[in-house]
């Protein structure tokens, strides 16, 4: 088949314009979320992109603490940017589960759900009478996942945790950054977002088992343990050599060359040759074909030896410094090695590739209006993910959810609200709709 034909076919198959015509992979899955901050809430957010119905349960009034997390205290239309990232496609309801009647409502919701996600301290839900042991009695096929820092049992069970602690106690921060400098925390909430992604993987595997057998289960999930599993050769290396892993800046000490260099025109360029074949091609591109014949550089195992790597990287560094990014990019395309510049948020925003692929996702939100967010990462041809709405105020969907799913009447809702069992947003930044909200838009049931 001709290649151009393939790319045209792929472009049509995955076209953004057709996404809303297509089906959703998780359209039959209902999730109840009782979470705050990121590790918890981000988990159902990934699943909501693919059609899961997610009921996010918050405390009436102030809701999720996450509603305050935004860079430099900058709110957009009264919304915290950190919070919006994980609020997409969810139904936002507010129940006080400390209240007996609140627990009852919560249980009634769980009775018809497939999945519960919580991220409270270990044992809290159990203590409140809405833990796995209580819920499995009303819903035997339930999949229940508890996300936190250190799990439900073991020496660290009493310890609170955050993303930054998972990064630090796992050793992830230790291996990031430059030699002789500080261990570096990632610039993103890595163990939260990546942790939530893997939590969602656990849910989907359990869902597959339930599809086959009807059986649900409990999943205990520690974000620190999750990031440890992503730290590639660290543990085997330490076990074999008896030496600790260090940090090596932008250099990949297991693949050579693989590093970030500065080009003649000041761009930071990530460049790598991941096979011997690519390395030969790189040598040609650098106009140094003799390097590929040098016994020190014949194979990746030779090239990664410390002395050889130092020698080779300095050659590549010099070469990159003598070329513009435009030239390097052209050569990488021609010779097929890996090279890309370090992208900023601005680069993402103006990049046509990301625009076409919906990584830069435009949305005309019914409540918040014109927005742009990081879109859905994986593209599925039959059941593409999508962003339907960005996020809503505390308790915004109470009427719809309690009426449709729990069969409550308007009067019953009022009574519950008066008792403080359910409620709406406090008049506080991050919790409310934007100032220009007309009181109707975005509401499914009045």
């Amino acid at each position, binding site marked *: 088949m001709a290649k151009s034909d393939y790319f045209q076919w*792929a472009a049509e198959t995955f076209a953004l314009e057709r996404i809303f015509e297509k089906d959703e*992979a998780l359209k039959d899955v209902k999730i109840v979320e009782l979470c705050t901050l990121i590790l918890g809430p981000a988990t159902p957010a*990934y699943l909501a992109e693919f059609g899961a119905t997610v009921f996010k349960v918050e405390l009436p009034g102030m809701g999720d*603490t996450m509603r*305050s*997390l935004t*860079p*430099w205290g900058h709110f957009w239309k009264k919304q915290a*940017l950190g919070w919006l990232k994980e609020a997409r496609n969810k139904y936002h309801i507010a129940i006080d589960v400390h209240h007996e009647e609140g627990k009852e409502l919560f249980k009634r919701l769980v009775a018809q759900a497939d999945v519960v996600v919580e991220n409270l301290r270990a*044992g809290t839900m159990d203590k409140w009478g809405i833990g796995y042991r209580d819920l499995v009695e009303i819903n035997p096929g339930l999949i229940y996942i508890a996300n936190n820092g250190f799990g439900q049992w073991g*020496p660290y069970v009493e310890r*609170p945790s955050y993303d*930054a*602690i998972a990064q*630090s106690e796992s*050793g992830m921060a*230790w291996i*990031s950054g*430059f030699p002789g400098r*500080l261990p570096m*925390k*990632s*610039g*993103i909430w*890595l163990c939260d977002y990546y942790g939530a*992604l*893997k939590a969602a993987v656990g849910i*989907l595997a*359990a869902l*597959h*088992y339930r*599809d086959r057998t009807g059986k649900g289960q409990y999943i205990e999930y520690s974000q620190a*343990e*999750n990031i*440890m599993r*992503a730290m*590639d*050769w660290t543990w085997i*290396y330490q076990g*074999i050599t008896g030496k*600790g892993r260090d940090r090596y800046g*932008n250099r*990949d000490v*297991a693949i050579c060359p693989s590093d*970030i260099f500065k080009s003649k025109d000041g761009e930071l360029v*990530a460049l790598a040759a*991941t*096979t011997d074949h*690519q390395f030969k091609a790189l040598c040609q591109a650098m106009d140094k074909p003799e390097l590929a014949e040098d016994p020190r550089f014949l194979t990746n*195992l030779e090239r990664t030896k*410390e002395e050889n790597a130092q020698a080779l990287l300095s050659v590549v560094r010099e070469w990159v410094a003598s070329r513009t990014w435009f030239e390097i990019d052209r050569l990488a*395309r021609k010779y097929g090695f890996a090279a*890309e510049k*370090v992208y900023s*948020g601005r680069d993402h925003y103006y990049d046509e590739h990301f625009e076409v692929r919906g990584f*830069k996702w435009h949305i005309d939100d019914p409540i918040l209006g014109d927005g742009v967010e990081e879109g859905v990462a*994986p*593209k*599925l041809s*039959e059941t593409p993910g999508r962003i339907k709405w960005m996020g809503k105020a505390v308790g915004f969907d109470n009427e719809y959810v309690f009426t449709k799913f729990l069969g409550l009447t308007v009067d019953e809702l009022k009574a519950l609200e008066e008792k403080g069992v359910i409620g709406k947003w406090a008049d506080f930044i991050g919790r409310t709709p934007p100032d220009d909200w007309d009181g109707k838009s975005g509401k499914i049931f009045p």
Partner: protein
Amino acid sequence: MVDKTKPWADWIREHDDPKYARSKPEALDDVWVLDLSYANMGGCFASSILAEMGANVIRVEPPGGDPARTYSPFGITHQGEGLGYLNEGRNKFHVTLNLETEEGRDLLKRLVDNRIDVLIETFKAGQMDEWGIGYRQLREIKPDIIYCAIYTYGQYGPKAECGKADADVVDQAMSGVTYVSGEYVEDPDNPQEWEVPTKQGNWMGWYCGGAYAAFSVLAALHYRHLTGKGQMIDVSPAEALGRMINYSLLYFHDTGQTVERVGNLDAGVFCYTYFKCKDGFCFLSGFSDVNWSLLTEVIERPDLRDQYPTIFERLKFENMKKAYKEIEKWTLDKEYQEIFERVMAANTRAKETGQGGVVVPGKVCSTWETQNTDNWWVRGSFEKFKDPVYGELTICNQPWKMTETPPRVKWICRPVGADNEFIYGTFLGLGTGDLKELEKAGII
């Protein structure tokens, strides 16, 4: 009735301690996966996840092995294998197949036809299609196949045809995460070589891409369960990691500004960072007013609470840098253990008095320390595992502790082509003689 007499921690441990894992069922043991990953640990990690959850994974390598087998720190190998690959060979059957030959591709099609539910590949976009074994062709043989392609630039979009290779460092750079990570320039007149965008030390681009591939495959499997339909999946590890950015596009959309790197600080939270202490580094938090107030109490600096009373003062970069230095004065002359104990005692006090607030302490561990920390061994995160071929190695297990279908490691890796006889013999009926012929012809 579920037994509720036991304390929660005891009850759940009895049901999900990984030490019982190997006697329990597996979530995905009805699924057959063909993993064609080439020089790409993202694909290998995707199939590891599925294999650890019980899927039957056939790893297809070119005769001579996947170049990824040479990915190893400082050229160190264990029984000839690179350590990076050794970590992701788990539970997979390893066969060889030369996809550059017509006969090799025919064998692949026969395998797909025979039993494959999921195919994972990491070639440059269009390569498989050009070989006649892309999604368009394989769905003719197996209409409900789930076909997952992993490549930095994806399968469509202006850059999909660029021809550049996928590498972890490139995925990280393109994701936007590298740009916001690393030390900021302290003095613009004298920038240091380490004050640059900094990647994660591990193969974070590949691992995130691999995790998203596994996520997508499982979502597609559920859809196949509902409708009988297969589909094609396009995963870019750069976008996968990029999806993990806290906030970037909306901030730019609204303000025209990019979020710049702030070292170990955080544009959205303060206090929330690492401090130097007497014997290393510690983490301390205190963001919401009540938590911040407690932190200033712990470090005996109520003046800081008054100086930065709301999150709006605490979320100014200049203030963060100043307050950071003040807090560090308290940590510098204390050992981690003392800091930990003082903070935890203050937490207890705050809870008992009803004052409220939590300060979260943590330790910045070296990976060596982590590997020698009891907690992770007790919990089965680390395990010394004896492999029939590779001997005893320290491995890290998947984090899910599941009551019904826990993940597990059955073997660590297999040599190149070690399972040719089993797979080709069992599923394609090829005998020893046939395999010898194929080997001679350079097909396996």
